[in-house]
């Protein structure tokens, strides 16, 4: 038996595979982790505090900067919460536009995850493929609202701009293209033996643990729990479309990988149907009071972001600014299970497991 000494190793905050400024302090016995302590807050900007001095329209750009890989869904959760409180009606055209950009965003977000996850594990080229294809979506968004990442596209009552001429056709063209690329991804990576050896059976947990830790998104569904807010608590127009919720069985990194790739496919299915059912024209802004003042009271509203359940808890005193605004960020909640998962794993698996959780540090810290 070789005698080993405990080693304290600091991973991050400037570590490429933490995808932002996130730090984990691990205690190592040889190569095996005996304790892991996540340290965060490096990206804490006090969004919730700042929001208390801003009116609701002014808060929308701040939501872009929480989960900057999925800004559209963040936009939506805020405006949806305010609309729920005020009982506003949204024109159909606007709601369709929102749904389309949200699903495009889900595809783009999962592509970022897919590319960077494989990069973490050691495969360089998938990252380039993923970003090539994501670029098409980013360009579409750029054309729609003039920004590549921080869109500030949605408003309480609708969306800021209708689709420019020809834009919807470009989305329509993108769908078959992306289906083809997904097949290519599968051929390139999904069956690769080295890759499978790295992720199969790694970072496993069961359904009860996932529920106890309040996981959501692919992190919850990989254990076989059918919980996708688009289905279970339908918001927007999701109950009009047919799509499946991919589920895993083993609760390991491989299941999460398969689920996310399958979710891209399902998003494309939703997009196809949405483009077909979309009204040809119409208003993109509903009837909204000049100054948005949700009546006094509170509401908790949640939607399914690519990373899981993103929630918005607004406490209003009937003023133009929220009295308290709290975001339930999926990355923050999902990350809690990390210290538990890492104990007994090797250092190389740390990267695999952390990547598999799919965090965006802007959202962890908020």
């Amino acid at each position, binding site marked *: 038996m070789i005698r080993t000494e405990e080693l304290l190793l600091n991973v991050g905050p400037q570590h490429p595979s933490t995808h932002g400024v996130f730090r984990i302090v691990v205690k190592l016995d040889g190569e095996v982790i005996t304790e892991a302590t996540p340290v965060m807050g490096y990206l804490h900007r006090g969004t919730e505090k700042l929001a208390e001095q801003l009116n609701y329209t002014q808060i929308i750009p701040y939501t872009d900067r929480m989960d900057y890989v999925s800004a559209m869904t963040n936009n939506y959760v805020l405006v949806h919460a305010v609309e729920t409180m005020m009982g506003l009606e949204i024109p159909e055209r606007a709601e369709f536009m929102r749904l389309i950009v949200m699903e495009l965003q889900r595809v783009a977000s999962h592509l970022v995850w897919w590319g960077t996850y494989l990069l973490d594990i050691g495969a360089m080229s998938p990252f380039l493929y993923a970003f090539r294809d994501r670029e098409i979506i980013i360009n579409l968004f750029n054309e729609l609202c003039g920004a590549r990442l921080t869109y500030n596209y949605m408003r309480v009552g609708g969306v800021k701009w209708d689709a420019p001429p020809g834009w919807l056709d470009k989305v329509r063209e993108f769908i078959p293209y992306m289906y083809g690329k997904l097949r290519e991804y599968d051929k390139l990576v999904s069956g690769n033996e080295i890759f499978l050896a790295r992720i199969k059976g790694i970072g496993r947990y069961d359904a009860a643990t996932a529920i106890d830790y309040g996981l959501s998104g692919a992190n919850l569904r990989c254990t076989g729990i059918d919980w996708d807010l688009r289905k279970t608590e339908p918001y927007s127009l999701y109950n009009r479309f047919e799509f499946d919720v991919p589920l895993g069985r083993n609760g390991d990194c491989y299941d999460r990988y398969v689920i996310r790739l399958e979710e891209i496919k399902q998003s494309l299915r939703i997009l196809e149907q949405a483009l077909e059912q979309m009204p040809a024209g119409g208003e993109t802004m509903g009837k909204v009071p*000049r100054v948005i003042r949700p*009546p006094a009271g509170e509401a908790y509203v949640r939607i399914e972001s690519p990373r899981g359940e993103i929630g918005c808890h607004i406490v209003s005193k009937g003023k133009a600014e929220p009295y308290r605004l709290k975001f339930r960020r999926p990355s923050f909640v999902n990350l809690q299970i990390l210290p538990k998962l890492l104990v007994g794993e090797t250092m190389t698996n740390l990267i695999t497991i952390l990547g598999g959780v799919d965090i965006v540090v802007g959202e962890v810290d908020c």
Partner: protein
Amino acid sequence: MSEEKDEGQKPEAPADPEREAKLKAAAEARAARAAAKEAANAAGGAAPEAAADPEREAKLKAAAEARAARAAAKEAANPAGGAAPEAAEPPPPPEPSPKQPELDAVALLIRSLVHVEALEDAYVNEMSQHMPTIIVKNEHWLRTAELLKQHEELHFTYLRNVSGVDYETHLEAVYHLVHLESRRELAVKVKADRSDPVIASATPVWATANWNEREIYDLLGVTFPGHPDLRRIMMSDDWVGHPLRKDYEPLDSEV
């Protein structure tokens, strides 16, 4: 942007006595808008008019000359808007929320199994998509939490969110629970004294509460006895004060 400017110009217009004719036209336009607003309210169900009314009243006091014109405008608006409040009133009859029985069942179980007076209040928050909400007395919180999770009829196994709110009179933690199979929901509020805020930690019951409670401890200064690792999470360890408190004064107000 332009909307805000419009808001700013409003009070100036009545102060100008020479433009009565214009004023009248403006008042009429405003009346039409008010009528449209009320019609929209009747359709939407919500009532932002409550917020708009005091403002209108304040302006009425300030602009004595415009009063007559405004009153006339109001009268003109009333026949149109008069129908709206009546139309808005009928909805209350289906008053008992569909979630009321759910809430009653939860409240009954807590009152009979934890303590008769464990609940301060129980109501359905209609604004939050009819969320059944209970306010649990601080000293009964931990036992209530255990019951909520373990009792076979309740079985709220999934804690989706914990929010902390500073109400200036007291601090509050809101736990949002879900029963995954039936999709039943419950919001549980626990109040704490502002000078010495203490709420029993729910982390032993739901692991999710761990970081959420750390965040509330960090930003609002609520201590959670029973928490396994109560440290600051967002701010640095040597930070002074709790930023989300309403009376928190930042060192540099420019930042």
